[in-house]
């Protein structure tokens, strides 16, 4: 594992040279991608860090998204807006994320999980645009912190009960009455907030809207998946208690997903719409995880990767429009096909991937998750059908409203797409649509 951490730390030294870090980050992703051949359960083990199938996929995703962040954040570089600090914060975030995903110890996982919030907060407060970002940062920080302190307590209690916090040595806890229920709730709530589940989702639209493009991409791309990944790791300990409670999470997620997709249809702010759509996708992921069947876990991994790429790409697109028109509102940014017809291709490709059309990874993930939920209970079909339908409809709403029609009259100039923007979108879209051909690479 050190062979990926050391280059990252070395890259901090080069934080003044954007070019070197940009190229270096892609290079480390390449080296990481060559480590895919593993027939053993756990590999690259060392210093209490190791990778198994899920970790590998998530670390690969983190590296890829951060590389794409460096390409898409050219405005920071152009305006010389604390360049080296920006790069350093991004690399620190990546270090914490890699530590989180590769930690073999629950406490190390928890510490890195919390630590990854700080660079995100610095990104939002430092490079965001609006004064509301202070409130957004507070929401994000305190929602996550408040619900994850019980997680710390439960991990320490687990340590005192079973003597070890190594994830691979964790065993299922036998029931002890209501204490185990409380234990279970306090453990999983942290991840429910991170995912986010419907009732605890308020921080997400705020954080996404106020964050700069780097913050949005890393949030949508990787940080939400921290919740999913954490849940998979933690539910090993609580399998019996999980079976008692999964009806609650599935119901809240599905109904919440339906409500949120209806809320999406009413959004005027593009980033807000994409943020709410993230909540919808993650609600499906949550259902898949708590049902804890094989297809559920595989589907949730695939959907996490697919959503990470797709949402991140959509945020890139929304940011490109914001950089040109100065507004995220759908009422101002309409008729964009007139100004940037080539960008319309990418809007289309990423939008249809968002609504789980073939051949995207989202499709495969959603199919697997829908089958999982139906095999768990046939009643979920009502929620799932509404969720899928409205998911397609709000994506279509966003695409059509932003692209079609007559352009906004007050827009006097609009730079056509730059090559780095097209590259960033292409690098989002290609893995999303090609990986379905060999999806065992992203399955659990």
């Amino acid at each position: 594992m050190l062979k990926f951490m050391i280059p990252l730390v070395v890259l901090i030294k080069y934080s003044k040279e954007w070019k070197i870090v940009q190229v270096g980050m892609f290079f480390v992703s390449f080296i990481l991608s060559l480590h895919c051949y593993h027939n053993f359960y756990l590999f690259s083990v060392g210093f209490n860090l190791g990778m198994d199938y899920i970790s590998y996929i998530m670390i690969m995703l983190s590296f890829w998204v951060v590389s794409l962040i460096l390409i898409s954040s050219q405005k920071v570089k152009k305006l010389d807006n604390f360049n080296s600090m920006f790069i350093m914060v991004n690399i620190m975030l990546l270090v914490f994320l890699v530590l989180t995903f590769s930690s073999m110890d629950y406490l190390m996982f928890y510490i890195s999980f919390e630590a990854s919030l700080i660079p995100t907060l610095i990104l939002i407060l430092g490079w965001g645009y609006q004064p509301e970002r202070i409130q957004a940062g507070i929401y994000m920080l305190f929602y996550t912190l408040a619900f994850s302190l019980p997680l710390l307590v439960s991990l320490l209690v687990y340590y005192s009960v079973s003597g070890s916090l190594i994830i691979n040595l964790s065993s299922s806890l036998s029931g002890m009455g209501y204490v185990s229920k409380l234990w279970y709730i306090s453990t999983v709530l942290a991840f429910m907030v991170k995912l986010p589940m419907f009732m605890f989702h308020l921080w997400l639209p705020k954080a996404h809207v106020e964050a700069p493009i780097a913050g949005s991409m890393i949030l949508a791309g990787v940080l939400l998946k921290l919740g999913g990944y954490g849940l998979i790791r933690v539910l090993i300990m609580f399998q019996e208690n999980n079976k008692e409670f999964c009806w609650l999470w599935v119901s809240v997620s599905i109904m919440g997903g339906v409500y949120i997709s209806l809320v999406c249809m009413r959004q005027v702010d593009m980033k807000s719409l994409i943020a709410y759509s993230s909540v919808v996708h993650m609600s499906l992921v949550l259902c898949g995880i708590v049902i804890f069947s094989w297809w559920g876990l595989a589907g949730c991994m695939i959907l996490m990767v697919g959503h990470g790429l797709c949402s991140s790409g959509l945020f890139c697109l929304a940011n490109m429009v914001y950089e040109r028109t100065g507004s995220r509102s759908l009422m101002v940014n309409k008729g964009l096909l007139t100004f940037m017809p080539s960008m319309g291709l990418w809007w289309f490709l990423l939008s249809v991937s968002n609504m789980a059309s073939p051949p995207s990874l989202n499709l495969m993930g959603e199919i697997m998750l829908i089958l999982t939920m139906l095999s768990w209970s046939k009643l979920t079909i009502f929620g799932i059908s509404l969720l899928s339908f409205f998911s397609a409809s709000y994506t279509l709403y966003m695409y059509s409203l932003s692209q079609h029609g007559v352009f906004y009259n007050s827009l006097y100039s609009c730079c056509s797409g730059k090559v780095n923007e097209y590259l960033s979108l292409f690098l989002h879209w290609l893995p999303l649509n090609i990986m379905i051909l060999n999806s065992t690479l992203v399955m659990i």
Partner: protein
Amino acid sequence: MAALTRLGALSLRLNQRLLQPSVVRAAGISTSKKNKDTVTVTDVITDHGKSKTESSEAASKNWISWGFDHYSQVEDNSTMHMTFFVAVTLCLVTTGFVWSYLPDFRMRDWAQREAFLELRRREALGLPAIDPDLVPLDKIELPDDEELGSREIII
């Protein structure tokens, strides 16, 4: 890596003529009659020698950035080349190649082969495909009713 970068940037800076041709043919195409009766076609070959640094500035006056660097054309160009190489050639093409030709990834083919071999063996011996006593009954310990208490049984 840094050395490679600097070398690339240096070579591009020195060899700026890589970015523009050294000999430009400026051929006028207007064939309308001017003051005289005869038609003259001016065909001038201008040579951008090393001394003509002003014209190289003129050539990059209407430079459109690739998006990687907005202030220096050389930087922009070299960053573009490097990023595309690492991102597309290495990460997409090479990785895609490696991933698509991975031999027996996660031992799926091996597992299927073993399954078929086992099935053939069982059919030859007349056994069922899966033993109904896969887990011997005497090894299964179910909890008593008192241990279960009021807990729900979920299957």
